[in-house]
């Protein structure tokens, strides 16, 4: 009888142990300025976590997501990172604004808790703080412009215009664009900014028209302001080609900029012909009933990278997870065909600098890939 009781207790304890979850924190923006990107990112993370759990979880345990909303505010964001760590999160995924992810690092570095962002593209996230517990896997601003330039190289541009908005990210990407263009010996004949909340971009576009560039590079990330730029371009009847940052890879432009975007090339980390992308799109649609977009793919890759690191670490020990994450070699949804995320030579920006593609808008739809990588 005693033996039977002991076996029953052991089985019960085993069941309890099996049911203990692995907690992953997610810091998202549900009401602030980055909500348009954060929301699909988060949906991608949730979809990925469900997929992992349906296949038995990680190390025999289910993943439990603890999702918090920081409104893209760095001050709130740091407090939420602390809260998630106190609640037992072994990894934090940041899908809010870059400055918020940066502020979270002050906590994760001190608490030695792994943190990653699958989407933030500000180059400074992994260069300003020596935080061995932080990684970014979204394509950097410098990678975007280098890929765009590689595509434009055949055109032999000598004089170009640059336009962006006054958001923090728009300025950061604009700065990266400017640096790379100048390094390539291309003259920037007009460098314009459209302010958040503007009602027109006619003055900026007139100035660009007067400078007579061979092409215009768009680094803005605010959808409404970018649409104003396209309207001014159309209204003034200018003809130079537009090359855009990856902000134009968000499909919302197909509806809000209808009739304005035909022929615009944009850099993207999403190749619709890639087998992994096709499988992801089919699975996502089946599970949610919605067509995914590239932003869902970033979030999906984020949770998959975290799960992969925990699996290889063989435990939820944060130090072991850190070492496993640093040794990542993983092919996901994002990036050109065959691209793998990795962090060679101690680097913590894991998107292959040669892994982006350039696509073109055709009949108001995101169209074919016209260029791959930086070569």
């Amino acid at each position, binding site marked *: 009888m005693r033996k039977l009781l002991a076996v029953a207790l052991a089985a019960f304890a085993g069941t309890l142990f099996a049911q203990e979850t692995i907690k992953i924190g997610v810091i998202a923006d549900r009401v602030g300025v980055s909500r348009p990107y954060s929301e699909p990112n988060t949906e991608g993370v949730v979809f990925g976590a469900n997929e992992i759990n349906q296949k038995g979880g990680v190390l025999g345990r289910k993943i439990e997501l603890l999702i918090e909303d920081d409104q893209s505010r760095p001050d709130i964001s740091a407090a939420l990172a602390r809260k998630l760590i106190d609640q037992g999160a072994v990894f934090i995924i940041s899908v809010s604004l870059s400055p918020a992810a940066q502020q979270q690092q002050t906590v994760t570095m001190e608490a030695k808790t792994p943190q990653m962002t699958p989407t933030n593209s500000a180059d400074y996230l992994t260069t300003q703080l020596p935080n061995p517990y932080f990684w970014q896997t979204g394509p950097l601003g410098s990678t975007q412009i280098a890929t765009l330039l590689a595509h434009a190289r055949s055109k032999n541009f000598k004089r170009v215009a640059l336009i962006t908005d006054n958001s923090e990210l728009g300025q950061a990407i604009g700065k990266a664009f400017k640096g790379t263009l100048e390094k390539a010996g291309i003259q920037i004949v007009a460098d314009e*900014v459209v302010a958040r909340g503007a009602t027109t971009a006619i003055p900026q576009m*007139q100035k660009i028209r007067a400078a007579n560039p061979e092409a215009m590079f768009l680094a803005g990330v605010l959808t409404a302001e970018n649409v104003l730029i396209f309207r001014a371009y159309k209204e003034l009847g200018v003809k130079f080609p537009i090359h855009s940052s990856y902000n134009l890879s968000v499909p919302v432009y197909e509806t809000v900029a209808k009739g304005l975007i035909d022929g615009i090339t944009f850099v993207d980390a999403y190749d619709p012909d890639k087998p992994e992308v096709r499988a992801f799109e089919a699975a996502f649609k089946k599970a949610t009933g919605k067509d995914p977009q590239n932003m869902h793919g970033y979030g999906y890759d984020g949770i998959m990278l975290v799960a992969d690191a925990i699996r290889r670490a063989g435990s939820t020990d944060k130090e072991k997870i850190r070492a496993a994450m640093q040794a990542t070699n993983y092919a996901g949804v994002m990036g050109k065909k065959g691209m793998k995320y990795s962090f060679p030579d101690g680097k913590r920006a894991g998107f292959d600098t040669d892994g982006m593609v350039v696509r073109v808008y055709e009949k108001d739809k995101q169209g074919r890939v016209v260029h791959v990588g930086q070569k």
Partner: protein
Amino acid sequence: MQDFLELAVSATASGCIYGLIALAYLLMIRPTGIINFAVGEWAMVAAFGGYLLLTKHQLPYPLGMAVVLAFMLLVGWVSERVAVRPLVEKGAPILAPILALLGVLVVTREAISVSFPPDPMPVPFPFGIGRLEFAGIGGSYQSFFIIAVTAAVFAGTWVFFEKTLWGKSFEAVSLNRRAAALMGINLSRVTALSFAAGASVAGCAGLLVSPNISAHYLMGIPLAIQGFTALVIGGVGRVEGALVGGLLLAFAEQLTARYAPIPSGFAQGVPLLFLIIFLLVRPTGLLRARG
């Protein structure tokens, strides 16, 4: 020259939007003394109304516009009943309804934010995307539509205040509430109507600007700031001050961005500069009240 005329049309259209928001402020400030910063959010509500009726349900533009503006009358009236009147009736200081209306601002924005997807929503142009040119002046159809509607709204408001008995009762309340009440003017009704009209005018601005910038949940605050700056420039004394302030602000913004030999980003400081200068040098605005 063609460059300048093109810019003039664009600046006039932007100035009209600022002027309409300033007029919305003015309609409420004159009889009540209350500054309602929720006007920007009201413009946003109307923009989303435009998305729902004109884009999603594809109502004819005049009908959709009329329904949205009528709905905005209701929004203003309800806001006054819920957030302003109870405080005024209890004799609360003037700051109390202003703070309550800031609460309305937050509630409105969050309600829209959770009710719609995060991406900007398209609102159609009444006359499509196109360019009109005559006598060397060129601009989009929408720019000329904005200018025409704004002219009609300001003309109607001017006639209301100058030529109708109801308008005179508004003026009387703005001059002296107690004396107006003693003369038999119903203060509650004037206050409610001023909020309803303010919301409708702000909604008109939101509907007019939304085809250009789309309907999105963060569009309200910049409009509220631009309209407030236009109001400070033009002054609260006269209806036409709101339009003058809006036009002056838009021309200063766009001429600086186009012609000033400074980095483009610095042109964003122009509205702030105007606000500071007018608050310091001429806090009553350019146009003073008659009499």
